[in-house]
């Protein structure tokens, strides 16, 4: 087993452990911190795949943006030190069963599936290629989704302000 494979299994174990802790921890603030570690692990996984640009985007947006937003909303709405109530035993049992069977089905599908030939073409990711293709108007260009996403972000921005604004007390 090469060093790269060992690093892969270490990163995978880290991501999954932190994910499990994040969904089972009963203190909501700790749960957010475990989620943060899991997302950092995923960024490390992208670095392992040589996708440095995506890893940087992952760290900036998820770790720097979304988790901080979640932590702020925890402080605004919860008593952070308190334990959340234990989920009902029947609910835990049935969600475990559903998750187990879903995982088993997907595992079997992946295990039995034969993928097309792994291409030996070297994969390199240049940020300039991403930029060119993102804004190109030719057949494989992504300029239309890019513009749609910019409209979506504007709509989300205005929508958040409208929803969360403090209403005048009548």
């Amino acid at each position, binding site marked *: 087993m090469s060093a790269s494979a060992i690093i892969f299994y270490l990163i995978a174990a880290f991501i999954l452990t932190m*994910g499990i802790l*994040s969904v089972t921890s009963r203190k*909501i603030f700790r749960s957010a911190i475990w*989620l943060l570690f899991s997302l950092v692990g995923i960024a490390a996984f992208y670095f392992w795949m040589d996708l440095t640009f995506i890893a940087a985007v992952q760290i900036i947006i998820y770790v720097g943006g979304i988790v901080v937003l979640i932590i702020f909303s925890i402080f605004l709405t919860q008593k952070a030190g308190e334990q959340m109530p234990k989920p009902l035993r029947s609910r835990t049992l049935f*969600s475990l069963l559903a998750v187990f069977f879903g995982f088993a089905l997907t*595992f079997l599908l992946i295990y039995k599936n034969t993928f097309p030939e792994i291409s030996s073409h070297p994969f390199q990711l240049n940020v300039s290629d991403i930029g060119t293709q993102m804004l190109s108007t030719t057949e494989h260009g992504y300029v239309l989704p890019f513009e749609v996403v910019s409209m979506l*972000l504007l709509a989300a921005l205005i929508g958040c302000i409208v929803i969360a604004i403090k209403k005048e007390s009548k």
Partner: protein
Amino acid sequence: MNGIPLTHILFVSTALFFIGMYGLFSRRNMITMLMSIELILNSVNINFLAFNKYLYPENLDGIFFTIFIITIAAAEAAVAIAIIINLYRSHQSIDVEDAGELKF
């Protein structure tokens, strides 16, 4: 590449997806459900990037899908948190069982 078969990466992302599903099923607090959704979206991103890198390395489409998913996830988290804060103001609770009516 690196001696890791594609299926192992897919197993990791499947496991992460179902961990997120477990959180979504068993939790009743809106913020923790939102965190589970983030885990699910991340597992999808891993799949897109692994397929792009292993099967179609001459294209960049998986990268673009990942970038758009990350963007939409950020917008979704922001809107969800605005809704959660508004709900907390009117109900003093962010448990989904307490939000029984559509109009307040």
